[in-house]
């Protein structure tokens, strides 16, 4: 296996999160809908109907092209790809062939070992999705709800070298899609679908050998596993004197197995030609500029800036830029705090993310604003409340929406820093534990911790720990 290099190219289909379909005014998303209830004469291919392009699909497609560092085509065109299949009601798919919306492009993968893999984009174009079919007792049943959903098809060059890299590509792509807001990129719902082309070659060789295509590798794990399996199969085949044939394989995620779908020898003739029902998609220089300008700072750039500007570790920076609103939350909190990036980072990574997971919310959806978080951290750092109280406050603020300072006052959560009041309480505790006091005085100084615990319990954790120690030592040593 280690004598061989695995060559992988990924073909992804990305569902754009527009309100409506690409060529008609039906809803784009039919996840919750009964079959064939979100259709119209256009997407179900009735005779006489015509496609009308959704401008938002164009804008989102162009934004993705920009985010992938591709050139945005000022005049792209649509073509017809002709073939018969029951899920394709017109008998042709409207897609882009030789004048796609994006040209070129790349994505740099940051591998966990610190290496970077540069992946070039071979193709990036807009097209319409087909419907869904399922087999029931030998009959194929067709649902057109998904027909006409706007997709971007994006194909990489064969630049990936392992299942892990392919998985990382999908992880970063998914992050990017959500980051720039063009797709929900939910793989379970088919918003991001993937086919993988896999071939092998002897290390050091430059040739591209016959590849197989694995269909339906629709999760991060599936990509990693399926490619691993297929590379292993190809190596074993070649090692035993066989040759790899151009198959299309299907990945069965449940059984973790590849099955052969068909030989690709008889490549279909799609007879592409220009779609006469649509005009060229013209994007002016200003429009293209506006699309570029409208892009947020991209994840990799922000991640590096966080390391540089805030002195965060690579690990922290990666987590905080894992999702766009989280990274924005961080910066907002730093601004409110007026610094404190390290502790904000710690609070966010350790505590805030747990809260978000529990509540299934993104940072943007939190009621606990960055300003509130900054306030809580400040209260802790100034000793006004202890850390445990601070952590509890996160949830209280999220649930009530109230200002943390207000909650601290109303609920009396501030630490007891009045030495007179604390002394009275400690005296009472010592009076109630004569044996322990005697033992301590006899030299068992490790009991100090136990006394501190008693005080904390009695004060509901609000006693200032430093002051508690001082008073305890004073009273015990006398």
């Amino acid at each position, binding site marked *: 296996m280690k004598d061989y290099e695995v060559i992988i190219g990924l073909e992804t289909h990305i569902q754009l999160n527009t309100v409506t379909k690409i060529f008609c*005014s039906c*809803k784009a998303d039919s996840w919750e809908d009964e079959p*064939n209830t979100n259709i119209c004469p256009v997407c179900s291919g009735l005779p006489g109907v015509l496609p009308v392009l959704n401008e938002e699909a164009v804008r989102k497609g162009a934004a993705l092209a920009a985010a992938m560092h591709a050139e945005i085509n000022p005049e792209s065109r649509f073509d017809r790809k002709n073939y018969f299949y029951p899920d394709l009601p017109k008998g042709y798919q409207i897609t882009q062939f030789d004048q796609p919306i994006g040209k070129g492009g790349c994505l740099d993968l940051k591998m966990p070992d610190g290496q970077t893999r540069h992946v070039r984009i071979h193709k990036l174009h807009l097209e319409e999705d087909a419907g869904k079919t399922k087999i029931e007792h*030998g009959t*194929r049943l*067709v*649902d057109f709800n998904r027909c006409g959903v706007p997709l971007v098809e994006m194909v990489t060059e064969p630049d990936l070298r392992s299942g892990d890299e392919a998985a990382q590509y999908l992880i970063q792509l998914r992050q990017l899609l959500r980051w720039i807001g063009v797709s929900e990129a939910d793989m379970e719902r088919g918003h991001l679908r993937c086919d993988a082309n896999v071939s092998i070659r002897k290390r050091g060789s430059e040739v591209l050998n016959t590849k197989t295509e694995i269909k339906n590798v629709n999760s991060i794990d599936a990509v990693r596993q399926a490619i691993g399996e297929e590379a292993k199969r190809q190596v074993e085949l070649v090692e035993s004197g066989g040759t790899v044939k151009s198959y299309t394989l299907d990945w069965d995620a449940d059984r973790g197995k590849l099955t052969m779908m068909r030989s690709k020898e008889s490549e279909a003739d799609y007879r592409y030609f220009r779609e006469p029902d649509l*005009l060229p998609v013209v994007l002016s220089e200003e429009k293209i500029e506006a699309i570029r300008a409208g892009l947020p700072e991209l994840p990799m750039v922000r991640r590096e800036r966080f390391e540089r500007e805030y002195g965060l570790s690579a690990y922290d920076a990666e987590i905080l830029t894992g999702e766009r609103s989280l990274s924005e939350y961080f910066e907002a909190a730093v601004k409110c705090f007026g610094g404190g990036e390290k502790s904000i980072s710690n609070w966010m990574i350790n505590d805030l993310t747990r809260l978000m997971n529990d509540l299934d919310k993104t940072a943007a959806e939190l009621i606990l604003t960055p300003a509130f978080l900054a306030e809580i951290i400040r209260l802790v750092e100034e000793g006004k409340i202890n850390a445990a109280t601070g952590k509890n406050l996160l949830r209280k603020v999220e649930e009530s929406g109230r200002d943390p300072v207000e909650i601290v006052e109303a609920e009396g959560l501030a630490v007891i820093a009045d030495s007179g009041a604390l002394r009275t309480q400690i005296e009472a505790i010592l009076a109630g534990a004569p044996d322990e006091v005697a033992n301590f005085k006899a030299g068992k100084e490790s009991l100090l911790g136990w006394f501190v615990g008693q005080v904390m319990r009695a004060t509901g954790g609000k006693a200032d720990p430093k002051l508690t120690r001082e008073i305890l030592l004073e009273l015990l040593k006398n």
Partner: protein
Amino acid sequence: MTVKRITPELFEKLVGLAALELTDEESSYLFEEMNHQLASVESLSQVPIPEDVQPSLHGVEPEGTAPRADRWVPFPRPERIIALAPESENGMIAVPDVKGAR
């Protein structure tokens, strides 16, 4: 000069690509007619094209409709569409399986 002809083999391939099947009578008629039409089409190969000529898709440059706004307008009673299908089951259009045997 002899004219280019579509071969019987290519013709058969085209029949498959077109998802048709033909009787012998139809085949011989259509095969001949196609070759007649091809004679007309082939006459185009003699037409010299000046370098600056770009393919024209519509003749007139359509000053067409701009892309539409992304606004949902549901089609009323979509079940009317499925009602047109020769065969349907539970609101789904039914066809034989690709592999057959139903």
